[in-house]
């Protein structure tokens, strides 16, 4: 099953009333969408709000999604439109301390409630997460590191990795899993100690 088909499966689950399936889509695309939105919205806290808002808009619009395009292109389009609306609303906003007035908050209801400025702790946490993942990758046995790198960075399929590494597909599957688990083992203590377990 291709990646797009997995998304389609999750979308159909959401369309049958399964909210948990949408949470899996959020886990999968939150950073990719956040990165895209941060090109429009420079402030990281605002970009985070816009990203949340884009996901909520996508959820509301999902009944109309027919799978004619890939889910992520559809989601990215919503993200870009939400970011543009935010910028337009931001320009009209009077220079006051009030984040949104009643008219401008059409697309951003509750956003101010959930807004959390990127604290130094969060930024430090981000760096630590990146450090742990990169260090863990370097510490992996070469066959595990190669398998995970070929998959995650080069985007090769298991079949292609099997050809490159000259091993059965089942071995590729096992190596990639073991590599992920080894990295995850180092990450879990860090994430579990973070406040509110928001990582």
């Amino acid at each position, binding site marked *: 099953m*291709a990646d797009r088909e997995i998304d389609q499966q999750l979308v159909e689950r959401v369309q049958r009333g399964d909210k948990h399936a949408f949470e*899996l889509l*959020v886990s999968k695309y939150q*950073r990719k969408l956040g990165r895209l939105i941060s090109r429009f919205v420079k402030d990281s806290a605002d970009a985070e709000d816009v990203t949340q808002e884009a996901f909520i808009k996508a959820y509301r619009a999902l009944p109309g999604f027919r799978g004619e395009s890939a889910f992520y292109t559809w989601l990215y389009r919503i993200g870009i439109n939400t970011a543009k609306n935010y910028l337009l609303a931001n320009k009209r906003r009077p220079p006051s301390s009030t984040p949104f007035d009643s008219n401008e908050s059409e697309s951003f209801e509750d956003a101010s409630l959930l807004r959390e400025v990127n604290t130094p702790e969060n930024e430090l946490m*981000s760096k630590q997460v990146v450090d742990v993942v990169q260090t863990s990758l370097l510490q992996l046995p070469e066959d595990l590191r190669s398998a995970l790198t070929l998959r995650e960075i080069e985007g090769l*399929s298991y079949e292609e990795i099997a050809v490159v590494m000259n091993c059965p597909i089942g071995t590729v599957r096992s190596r*990639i899993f073991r590599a*992920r688990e080894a990295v995850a083992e180092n990450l879990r203590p860090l994430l579990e100690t973070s406040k509110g377990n928001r990582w």
Partner: protein
Amino acid sequence: MNMEISALMDGELLEDESEKLLDHIGRVDEGRKDWEMYHLIGDVLHQPDHIHCDLSAKVRVRLQDEPVVFAPRKRGGNHKFSAVALSAAASLAAVGMVVWMSQQIGSEAFPQMAMQQNLLHPANVKIQSKSNDYLMAHQEFSPSTDMNGGASYIRMVNYESEGR
């Protein structure tokens, strides 16, 4: 189970396997955490400069206030199949109707007529002279004539002009 989650996010499971696994991940918290963890690792390897705190918890809170969405179960790729299936069903129905009608007509109307015709034998009956007028008057109802109604009143006439 974790190995299956790892394979699922790489798109390396069959459709029925992934359906079962998605059920599991939706139900079991540990499965969802592993899904999130593996995606975080992938994102860090892809874009280490843009790693922020997990938004899924915040979105989850907001989703609680959202109504459950429902949509018709349709897949983009099945439209053609549906159209073909519908047209095939319509064609079959049309053919079935024609066959049924022909059977109805064939088994009832035509055989009856055929049976009637088989039953018709030339009667060797002496017709009395006084019956001739009656038969002449009602000859249009005679089964021996193919043409009924006004056809029996058609008469062939001719005449010669005086000049010839």
